[in-house]
């Protein structure tokens, strides 16, 4: 909860941007997750306090949107696209290769906690299919070699 209190000033600024406090739920959750790595029950209570939204409805939001993690993820989080253009251009094979390289299945984190993998729906970068998102950056077009390069660079 201490780490959350450090975000109080920022939370106040965020809440002030909106005409109604409840609109601050999504940005406050992003803020908490960026700090802690995932959404804890303390984070839910903290967001509930600042947004004045009952905590059960904060939790509804956490479980509805795919970007909020309900459990810890890796230091680096990969979203690998599995929708039409990426499948058409051979993305499944590249994904299989990535899974084998990391030794994880969809939704899992490597044993050393460094990298987690999520199969995602269209990230809207189809001109670079097959593609994936690593943390904030988009990468594509991918093949097995490029994937190796990108992953090996992750610290």
């Amino acid at each position: 909860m201490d780490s959350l209190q450090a975000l109080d000033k920022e939370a106040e600024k965020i809440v002030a941007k909106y005409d109604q406090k409840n609109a601050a739920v999504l940005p406050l959750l992003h803020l908490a997750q960026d700090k802690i790595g995932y959404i804890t029950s303390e984070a839910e209570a903290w967001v509930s306090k600042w947004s004045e939204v009952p905590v059960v409805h904060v939790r509804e939001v956490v479980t509805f949107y795919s970007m909020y993690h309900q459990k810890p993820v890796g230091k680096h989080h990969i979203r690998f696209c599995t929708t039409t253009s990426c499948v058409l251009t051979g993305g499944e094979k590249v994904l299989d290769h990535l899974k084998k390289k990391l030794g994880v299945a969809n939704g899992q984190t490597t044993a050393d906690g460094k990298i987690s993998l999520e199969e995602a729906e269209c990230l809207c970068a189809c001109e670079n299919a097959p593609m994936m998102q690593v943390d904030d950056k988009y990468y594509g077009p991918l093949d097995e070699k490029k994937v190796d390069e990108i992953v090996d660079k992750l610290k």
Partner: protein
Amino acid sequence: MPNITIDGKPVTVKDGITIIEAIDQIKSDVPRYCYHPGLSIAGNCRICQVEVEKMPRTVIACNTPVVEGMVIHTQSQKAKESQQVVLEFLLVNHPLDCPVCDQAGECKLQDYYMDYGLYDPKFNERKVKKTKKAISIGPTVMLDQERCILCSRCVRFGDEITKTHDFGIFNRGDHAEIDIYPGKELNNKYSGNVVDICPVGALTDKDFRFKMRVWYLGSQESICPGCSRGCNINIEYEKTRPVHLKNDRVMRLKPRENQAVNQWWMCDEGRYAYKSIDQHRLTKIKEVTWTETLLKIASLIKTDKAPHSWALLASPQYTNEELFLTKKIFKDTLKWKHIGFKAPLGEGTEDNFLLKKDKNPNTSGAAQILGLSKESEGLAPIIEKAKRGELEGLFIFHHDLAKIYGDETLKTIRQKVKTIIYEGPNENPTAAAADFVLPSASYAEKDGTFTNFDGRVQRIRKSLEPLGLSRPAWQILLELGVHLGMTFTYDRPEHIFNELSRENQTFRDMDYKKIGQLGHLWNKKGNTSS
């Protein structure tokens, strides 16, 4: 006031309503799950589909406003197809739990399937598995997530009615689940209502769990005696089960709609208090017959000294009819000096919803009918006199002195007072200490009326025969009166009420017919009780 046509019938309806309200107004029907008149519109179940001429597709009745000249078909080919299709979608992932589900017999999925479904099911895949099956989510409610059709009634109830924000719908798509917040409990004072509004067996009552199949139940309209609000209820009791269970007859209480009193709801305190109808009852008399008992009592209380040396603790638990007889006997005929009825209010909770601090159903009636002065309404002066040994006899209706004043006070009074007569339905320390016990019927076993805090006179109706040798208090009082030399022309509570209505201005122009199912306000401005 738009003029419209519903299923070929021309009808004029109120302004500003939706199709479903119009359909309900003419007492027709269209299937619905998420719609509830006491909650906001959700429009998510999609089953209340009706065909409206000039509209290309069927529309949901709950969110389509009525306009002048609208022609609506609830059972046309198009409407039926839409209703059927939606029902099939709702049943796709619904578990085949009927054999083990309490909702069976009053389940809207079953009912609507029989009325609007009867199709050949095509689903051939594995059903979605949800996280919680048969989990207790609080002291009163069980949750089964797989049965939930995500109508969100319980969510809206918690957000809009109790404002306790108990429920949420988590995840999305067909993995969406109803639940409460992890680590929390559903324990607001109105939690039982979510079981009433859940159209399926996702939320079920723990108290009623597995007790009885609902088709064995009889139902009778009554009024909850738990507080001065007088919520309208139905008493549901075992009626047709071939093998009877133990001794309990009443299985549960359900709220009955009355917009002027309790809308569609009742509190948990009242809902789960039905056990006193069947348990710990006084069912025997010490003497051989009622008549012997009452003759003995009559001789004790009609002495010349009695009006000063006896006291009557009348009860705001009793009906208007019984209070009227009490007044006629003890005040008018015997002319007793010491009569009271109001016990101290205690720590009863009150809120700005249904709960009232006064946990008696007829304080208004008692005040109005007994016509005592404000200072003598309370029991306190009588209790003090009794403790000081100034009273020879106490006639107690219903009050348990141990509960109100403590065991020590009861002990003192027992020592100082020569004769104690107790009349009431349930066992308690005062009854145990009394010399004469007159077992009386519970509110479920007699007809009569209560007057609530608002001055609304409402009927209780007899559901069951009095247990054992118990008798309705009005019957006991009538026979006692006869033994005191009085004559009466009534043989049932309705007659007593009619005379009350003739004699007491506040109750004038009323009879059982006028009171009907929703009660009738008496002729008096303002409240008389808290």
